[in-house]
């Protein structure tokens, strides 16, 4: 996943959001005196929702913002299409300054360039699946026939063909969120905003929808900002991840950077808590010894860290961080295989090394 050399699709610069009736004055005081969150609350009765957030998202990139509830991530994502007005700072989309747009341009931007998916689906209960999906086209006054055609395509993309005439309350939660996804992609926007889209679903369905989304994202190359409170999900889906805490972006980086070099104790805590790291073992992600030797020549494992096949990714990460060499996997005296850094990172992402091999073979 190369994240370099992309043109910038979304640029968020120094966004602050202060909630409260005296937000303006509070903001001025913050910029002047660099007040802390508690001081703002005591002196102005205002709550700081987002504190000086800056990031850029490249075209076609999936950018995950991860944080616990109340960390300000849902507030932050709503600044991108200005459902929430920033107290301070600017947002540019494809080079256009969103903060300076008038209501008309903003509506055109929202309808044509940005699709959004919500945690609670937010489907319109009085409209059929088809009318929900075609909503953004309808508000732009596109003709019926075109609407039906485009909606059918979007519904097909999320495997809901045959359900067009149903109402949302006749669908299961997972299917409803598919409708939400179809609605977001119907107008073929270049940007998707996903506000914890899969959090309200049970684990099995969540996994399924993540696959649907990863598949769609790979085919459609949409620039995506994806909010989640689940680091597993962020790592699975995101090209880059931003960790948010108390309204501040604590760390922005690739999954590799986040996992291997957490910026502070908070991020480290998160990384330590990933369940998958304790589930996947070296034996599953390693490259068999024969294959490795065929590709890289005879093995010289002097100074290599050694793991057993039953060791978890967690243990492998610890070994890998302490050394520049790949990890040798052996059972007693028998050498079984090698875990390269690449394979390890794939494992953390939840993908198997065979994928990369086939990709390498194709290239």
């Amino acid at each position, binding site marked *: 996943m190369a994240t370099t050399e992309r043109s910038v699709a979304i640029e968020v610069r120094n966004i602050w959001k202060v909630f409260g009736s005296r937000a303006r004055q509070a903001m001025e005081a913050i910029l002047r005196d660099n007040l802390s969150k508690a001081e703002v609350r005591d002196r102005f009765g205002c709550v700081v929702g987002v504190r000086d957030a800056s990031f850029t998202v490249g075209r076609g990139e999936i950018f995950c913002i991860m944080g616990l509830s109340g960390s300000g991530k849902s507030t932050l994502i709503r600044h991108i299409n200005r*459902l929430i007005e920033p107290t301070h700072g600017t947002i540019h989309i494809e080079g256009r300054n969103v903060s300076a747009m008038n209501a008309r341009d903003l*509506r055109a931007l929202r309808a044509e360039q940005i699709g959004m998916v919500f945690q609670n689906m*937010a*489907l*319109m*209960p009085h409209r059929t699946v088809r009318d929900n999906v075609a909503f953004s086209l309808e*508000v*732009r006054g596109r003709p019926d026939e075109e609407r039906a055609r485009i909606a059918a395509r979007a519904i097909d993309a999320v495997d809901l063909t045959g359900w067009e005439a149903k109402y949302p309350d*006749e669908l299961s939660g997972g299917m409803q969120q598919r409708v939400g996804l179809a609605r977001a992609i119907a107008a073929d926007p270049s940007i998707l*905003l996903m506000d914890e889209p899969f959090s309200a679903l049970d684990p099995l369905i969540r996994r399924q929808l993540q696959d649907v989304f990863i598949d769609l994202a790979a085919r459609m190359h949409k620039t995506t900002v994806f909010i989640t409170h689940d680091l597993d999900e962020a790592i699975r889906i995101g090209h880059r991840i931003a960790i948010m805490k108390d309204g501040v972006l604590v760390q922005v980086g690739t999954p590799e950077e986040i996992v291997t070099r957490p910026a502070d104790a908070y991020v480290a805590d998160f990384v330590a808590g990933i369940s998958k790291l304790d589930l996947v073992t070296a034996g599953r992600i390693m490259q068999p010894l024969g294959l490795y030797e065929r590709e890289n020549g005879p093995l010289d494992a002097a100074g290599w860290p050694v793991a057993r096949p039953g060791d978890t990714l967690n243990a492998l990460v610890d070994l890998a961080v302490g050394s520049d060499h790949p990890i040798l996997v052996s059972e007693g005296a028998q050498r079984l295989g090698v875990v390269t850094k690449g394979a390890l990172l794939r494992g953390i992402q939840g993908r198997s090394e065979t994928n990369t091999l086939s990709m390498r073979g194709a290239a």
Partner: protein
Amino acid sequence: MADGFNILDPFRSVDLDIADRADGIKHWAISHRAAIDPLKRVLDGLITWIEATLQAVPPLVMLALLVLIAWQAAGRRTALLVGGCLLVLGFLTPDAWSLAMTTLAIVIASVIVCVLIGLPLGILAGKSDRFEAALRPVLDTMQTIPAFVYLVPVVMLMGIGNVSGVIVTIIFALPPIVRLTSLGIRGVNASVVEAARAFGATPRQILTKVELPLAAPTILAGLNQTIMLSLSMVVIASMISVKGLGNEVLRAMGRLDASKAIVGGLGIVILAIVLDRITQGLGRSTRERGHHHWWESGPVGAVLHLVRQRGHHEQDQKQTTGKTIHETA
């Protein structure tokens, strides 16, 4: 007065002369009658037209029409109930039907004006806390102030007759539709409205495509209450020379004629039951009806079904004839 200012009872010795001032308003109203003449004429035209229409339809046809409307709006059982009620109404006395139509005309005219005024006010109140706060005491006043208080000024302004009757009825019956429209708009799921915004809907589109449809059951409950309250005003309105069932009750009271009073009273009750059942049927959301569109059920649904069946039948016939031709060829 000079001897008697008592600090424990200050109200007795201070006279702000409010009654006289109100009298001034009355005189002002009388002298400005001409200004509201156009309004009066429009209302009068509306009432006359509605009543003429209702009276022109033969009673049995009107009865059948109401039954069909009830069937469409609320289903077969309600239709049967409405039919039975209307039969009883018609047989109460020979002229009961005509009296009921007069009353119905006044109610319909009042409700039309209530909706025209109440819906926009309710929408505004639903959107703005400040407007709602300002409106609330006015609505409270309208609902609680005794009708006799505004009966006189309205008559001074408009004279006696149907127009005054409608205005008096509106004052009493307007609040529920305003309140329930506001409640309905406020009750719309905020995240659905947010989603509509996120997909580029204008404020007007959000109102017409999201908020009003979702608030419709609540708004229709308000309409139902407005209709009920207008009906409850017909006796009072008859004091300012509005004809109809209310007038029967009023006259019976003057003559201590219990049997006449029962006829008028029963007529009003029956009318209330009929209107209530029909509008309650309207208020049930499509979701409660199992996602059938209104034209898929009731008499319209039955007719459409028949038409479609015949269409299929003809098509089948064409196909079979086509086949036989093909086969013979």
